[in-house]
């Protein structure tokens, strides 16, 4: 760290004209090329010497990557190069995907969000990624263009470990798709940092909820945690508890305890595992209570 390079190391900037060209180049240079959109993580890591890629393949402007579209019959499509501030300012995102809008507004700083992208946040696969929990709980899937053409990767099976995903050499994620929200959907993201702005999450809690007649309790409430496991963590027990039993202060406490029990955080320079576990419980309780209030209690 002390010998961090004073500037960026040398690399070649590649600007392909088509997705096919991008995929081909990335596949031909596996291990030394990387897709670039906002660059807010890439440049920091290259400067720190963590990533040593020789080529950055700019995917901005390729088929649909710069578009954000809400279709009332299909849902939301966010292009891979759409900056976070554009997402959270989009009226349909605010209206239909509150958890995502809330999470986006808590990533780093406004200035950084002018460049940073949600797809970048997802592909980075950091356990601390603030927007990932919302995308997971909202049933998100990625449109991926690979050497064999286009395919879809559901987020539920996308994350394999810190920084590790289902993407293969040659893959370019072109967009994130979120299905139409269930009726009455509400959502919230709680982030605990060391100070108020621009910090990485010590822990993040995403909660979404909606009325659901098929659930015994009448509600479907889901919760995801950031920074407490090797991958973004959806705590299935929370959904089960709050679907099976009537939603009360007691069942919310039980669900929050389940969230605490499900997580496996580590000690690091930001916080201890012990504190993170307790915060998983306390903030889950807080977030679930707020969602319950929003659902009309």
């Amino acid at each position, binding site marked *: 760290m*002390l010998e961090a390079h*004073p500037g960026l190391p*040398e690399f070649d900037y590649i600007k392909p004209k088509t997705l096919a060209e991008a995929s081909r180049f990335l596949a031909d240079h596996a291990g030394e090329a990387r897709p670039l959109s906002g660059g807010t993580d890439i440049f920091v890591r290259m400067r720190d010497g963590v990533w040593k890629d020789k080529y950055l393949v700019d995917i901005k402007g390729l088929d649909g990557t710069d578009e954000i579209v809400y279709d009332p019959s299909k849902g939301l499509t966010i292009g891979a190069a759409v900056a976070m501030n554009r997402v959270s300012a989009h009226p349909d995102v605010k209206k239909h995907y509150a958890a995502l809008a809330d999470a986006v507004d808590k990533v780093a700083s406004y200035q950084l969000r002018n460049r940073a992208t949600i797809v970048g946040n997802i592909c980075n696969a950091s356990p601390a990624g603030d927007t990932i929990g919302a995308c997971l709980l909202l049933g998100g899937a990625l449109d991926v263009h690979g050497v064999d053409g286009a395919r879809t990767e559901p987020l539920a099976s996308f994350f394999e470990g810190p920084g590790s995903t289902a993407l293969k050499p040659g893959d370019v994620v072109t967009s994130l798709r979120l299905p139409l929200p269930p009726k009455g959907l509400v959502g919230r993201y709680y982030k*605990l940092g060391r*100070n108020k*702005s621009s910090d990485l999450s010590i822990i993040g809690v995403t909660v979404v909820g909606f009325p659901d007649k098929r659930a015994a309790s009448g509600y479907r409430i889901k919760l995801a945690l950031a920074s407490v496991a090797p991958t973004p963590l959806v705590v299935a027990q929370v959904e089960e508890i709050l679907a099976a039993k009537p939603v009360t202060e007691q069942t919310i406490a039980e669900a929050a305890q389940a969230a605490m029990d499900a997580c496996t955080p580590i000690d690091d*320079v930001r*916080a201890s595992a012990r*504190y993170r576990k307790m915060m998983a419980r*306390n903030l889950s309780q807080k977030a679930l209570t707020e969602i319950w209030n929003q659902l009309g209690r």
Partner: protein
Amino acid sequence: MTTTVVHERIPEPIGESKPRLDNRKKVTGAATYADDMQFGSGLLYARILHSPHPHALIKSINISRAKALPGVKAVVTGEDFPGFIGLYLQDRHIFCRDRVRYVGDPVAGVAATSEEIAVKAVNLIEVEYEVLEPVVNPEFGASPDAPLVHPQLSEYKVVPFILPQAGTNISNLFKVRKGDVGAAWEKCAAIVERKYRIPHIQHVPIEPHVAIAQVDETGEVTLWGSSQSPFAQRNLIAQALGISQSDMRVVAPYVGGGFGSKAGVSMEALAVAIATKVRGRPVKLRLTREEEFYTAFVRQELISYFKMGCDKNGKILAMENRFYWGGGAYTEYGVNVTRAAGYSSTGPYEVPNVKTDSYCVYTNHPVGGPMRGFGMPEMHTGLEQCIDDLAHEIGIDPVEIRRRNCIREGSILVTGSKMHPTGLPQCIEETAKAIQWGQKASPSAPNKRRGKGTAIMWKAPAMPPNAGSSAWVELAEDGTVTVGLGGQDLGQGTFTVCAQMAAAALGVPYESVRIATPVDTRFSPYEWQTVASRLTWSMGNAVVSAAQDARRQILDLVSEAWGEDPEDLDIRNGVVVSYKSEQEIPLKDMVIYGLPKPNDSGWMGGPIRGRGKFMPTYVTSLDPETGQGERAVVHYTTGSQSVELEVDLDTGQVEILRGASSFDVGKAINPEMVKAQMEGGFVQGLSSALFEEMKMVDGYMQNPSFVDYRIATTTDAPSDLQSVIVEVPQDDGPWGARGIGEHSMVATAAAIANAIFDAVGIRMEGPPFSAEKIYLAMLDAGIVE
């Protein structure tokens, strides 16, 4: 020398919040900083090879591969530069010679035609080390069991008031023995004993250190750098290189924040040393943020023990304090932090019986140096919590115990000196009033607890007894005034304040005064350093003296020309007027070309240039065994800070709801800038209280970037931040002014700690009072489950 006290009348624009001189340039981006300066294609880039070990012997260095790399123009090591460098204690070489003492210690340097080549060359240097056991705890470091960081300590050159202890890691020991502490304890109705631990933090200026050095064919050196101390750098670097101070020129453009880190000498000497090997070519060295953390000055860490007792009325009878300062690898500057803490060790209280031992201890940590507050925040953070605990122990309100014990005019201080007039009692009332002390407001939510806390402080300029200032004042053909000075504007606004003082002393509008910048040791008058919050007072006195000298020359000339008594003349708004004859003449008509003698018999006068200087002449030495003496310091600025905050029981997070500061600045030359200092200091203090810590493990820093070294931003600062100016004049300050720059963060962390205690009843060993630390302490105390 002339006295510059002008109490009888406060002339314009003293006490007016004039706009800063540098506003426009800084806001538009036109201001030029060191890294903006252009040196053409001949510029070489320097990079440094740093020690990867906290403590090791250098067995061998092989630079041959680095030297052979195309584009490399010089590779230097400690062998090339045998001289010592240091402000108070010369314990440092420019490059390490036989031993490395911290991770980041400079081992070799490279100059190359590009930064990239310099980086490559540094990586080609091979060094063989013999790793030694590091000292990472100052209390252990002071013990006889600790390995020696500087075995040659007793051979180092040192100023008379610093007392290194031969054969130990203690590079200074300041002792106070006043009254009879042993006999006092039995008279106490309450006694508290506490231990605190304050971590290393850093200044984190937004502009990292940068220096460009060039040595010409004759050996004359020019250094351009982001600097608080161009003259000290001239002196110390010249000494280390064995050249004349006159052959060493330092030019100091705008500075993007200093807070002490750009005082004295740090990386600038590396750039100069490398430049001596590539004569004729400028060499630029700029630190990365990581290097800034590892290799620039840091604030010393402190392990402090306090024992204090009072009678049943809360009157403090005795204090016994022990300070183990973690000075880091070199304490050339830091030794004086520990001295300042010694002679201020009671805090702003009158205490009849005092025993203090303040140890400056070498450790294998980054180099401890001057930082805003110069030991006072670290010391007061413990002391002012301990005072609160004593108040609770004896059952007296924390503000009341401060009222009863705080120093006042005539109080006998810890060193035996007598206190000058001070507004401290008034400051205490102001901050108590500002946060409605004594009234408990209910928390904003059921899961929050609300608390209030207060802390008071004092601080003297810590410097050699004879630190001097000088200035000149010149007038141009149009009557505008240029002030030459050698102190630096770090953003605190000293140029603006000096322009105001020159305008007032001379009798011209503020708008017609310029400051001769950048400060350049070849042309600017001498100034010791921009430190110690001493410029408004010391450099201000020199500027006023120079302006008065120019004024005298002008009035003498006009009185001769008009045949009037100078006493009947005045300069108002740039015009000389006679109150007797009602004649007047604008300055522009006489300050360059003089005035004609009567009857066409020639001319008199000539270009006006006033000269001024100031140096305190009254500071005495202190007895090395007792710390007693007639006058330890020039003066103390005093003040008080209070906060109201909430602790979140779910997370341990602290929200500062409001803060109040009140300081006795003697006279606020520019009240808005005084308030800006109070606000800025409060936020920096808040940051050190809640977030900042260099996390050190076995001598290695774990968080050398802003990702994990958190600093407060505006969102963490309270929107309700009150600053109340108190003005009890200083007898030798310009219009009574004394300093305020550093004082404003001294009491903040203690006030916050006291408010956290008020809210949830917990005390922690030391800052940062992070959410995690508070939550776990509440858990241990059974406040949360």
